[in-house]
């Protein structure tokens, strides 16, 4: 009965939010966290309501940058992964370079973006792309390499070209893996966009965060973080829904 209620899809988001607020409140009371470290939930809710129009319009800009970076991730990451999966030579040179670039904290090099790309949307998009694309590459490589030899034999027996084999055999079979990468990627792209906004933007949630931080306005800062997380959740759910509609045949969906 309770289980059923808890699983009801319409109620779930509300229950979740309640749960989250309760948890938050509990932690603050339990550990006696002062308001200048973590503000109590109602303060944040108040600030959230008060600043709602601004948060909404700023979050829209962050979302745009995130989607731009995520789009680049797909357009650049998947083909690179393909090349890595298919060519030992590319794998042995490009893959290490990617890994090499990946361990650099973006916050450390992001200031250079400002110098190169100014204060527009570009540095945010690039930062979102840089943070997001590695998980997609790794997952996609794994997906392509897991394609069953039998199926490749089948394609070869049909005289399929490399491209056909890719689109009709490898890609569909790698889809679950690719989507798992995309899900990680999309949340990282949000972080990337915000890091981009930290270093070079006059708008977006990252900007609000920094300003709130500078003013020691913790309730606003946390409200901004909540908005940010919500963007992440919404994009994640969107990717998940696309996945469900694109791979209904997969064992995980039966």
């Amino acid at each position, binding site marked *: 009965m309770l289980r059923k209620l808890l699983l009801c899809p319409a109620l779930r988001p509300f229950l979740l939010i309640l749960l989250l607020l309760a948890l938050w409140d509990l932690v603050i009371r339990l550990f006696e966290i*002062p308001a*200048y*470290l973590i503000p109590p939930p109602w303060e944040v809710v108040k600030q959230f309501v008060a600043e709602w129009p601004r948060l909404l319009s700023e979050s829209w800009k962050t979302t745009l940058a995130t989607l731009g970076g995520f789009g680049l991730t797909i357009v650049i990451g998947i083909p690179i992964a393909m090349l890595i999966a298919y060519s030992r030579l590319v794998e042995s040179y490009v893959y290490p370079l990617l890994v090499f670039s990946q361990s650099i904290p973006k916050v450390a090099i992001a*200031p*250079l973006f*400002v*110098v*190169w790309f*100014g*204060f527009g949307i570009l540095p945010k998009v690039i930062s979102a792309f840089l943070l997001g694309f590695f998980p997609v590459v790794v997952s996609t490589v794994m997906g392509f390499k897991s394609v069953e030899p039998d199926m490749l034999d089948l394609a070869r027996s049909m005289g399929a070209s490399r491209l056909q084999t890719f689109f009709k055999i490898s890609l569909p079979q790698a889809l679950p893996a690719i989507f798992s990468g995309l899900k990680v990627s999309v949340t990282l792209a949000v972080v990337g966009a915000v890091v981009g906004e*930290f*270093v*070079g933007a*006059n708008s977006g949630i990252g900007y609000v965060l*920094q*300003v709130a*931080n*500078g*003013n*020691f306005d913790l309730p606003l800062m946390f409200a901004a973080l909540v908005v940010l997380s919500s963007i992440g959740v919404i994009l994640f759910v969107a990717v998940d829904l696309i996945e469900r509609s694109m791979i209904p045949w997969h064992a995980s969906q039966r």
Partner: protein
Amino acid sequence: QAEKPKDKVTLMLNWYLYSEHATFFLGKEKGFYAEEGIDLGIQEGRGSAVTAQAVAAKSATFGYIDVTTMIKAAAKGAPLKSTGVLFQVSPMSVMGLSEKNIATPKDIIGKTVAVTPGDSMSQMWPLFLKVNDIRPDQVKVVSGDGQTKLNAVANGQADLLLGYVMDQAIKLQDATGKPVTPIRFADSGVNQISSGIITHKNLLTENPDLVKRFMRASTKAAEAAEKSPEAAVDAMLKAHPKAGVRDTLIVGMKQSVALYHTQETANQRPFRVAMKNVNDSLDLLVQYGGMDASTRGKPEDYVTLDFLPN
């Protein structure tokens, strides 16, 4: 005068808006820049180093940053020069909650201090200890970024932090609701020039007139701000209502204008720094700031007063 085409000029700040920036908003509001034929855009920054790089790359016309940071960049080859130093007294200080009764340098002994590794305050810290006859092992140092330092002191993990009088001192006070006592480095004789205007060297030869006009307007703005810090803050808040809390900003602004002059420059207009002061700062940079002695150069290599009004 209306026909005269206006020069578009970008001033990139050292950070997001806070109190000391109000000067430029006041100048803009009073029309000092417009009078000079300058259409001024004020751009928030992300640290002095980034602004230095942006000005060097000509992404911004002028920068308002910590001049010692610019000196380090210029020593590495960045084509930058300061055309006027606004903060001639260093805002650096070590501060803690007043309830801890740490009011003089000697009180620091045995305490824990939060510093940000690598920043200019952490570099001057050993000197500050030295001139006060405190051995480095008599204080415990913990490291963290700006926010962490505040958290550490507010929460008791550290007794003190290194910060600017017009910035961290006020933040700490606002956060904890308790009074804060800053001990200025400058009061112990450890002084370094701080915020000032910088620009690309090429601009000085290509368009000296623009630089002159800009510095003239900025000088007027600084003078106006000295006279009325409240008006400056109000001008900034008018342009950017979210820039902060008025009362806090005014406190900060008052602290800021107090740094505009040393005793030697007390009777001069703002931005006119004493070259001896610059020279001392260079010495400190070489001794403590990680600057290579071979690249030290002369004060005139870094700061010029030629573009300032009389």
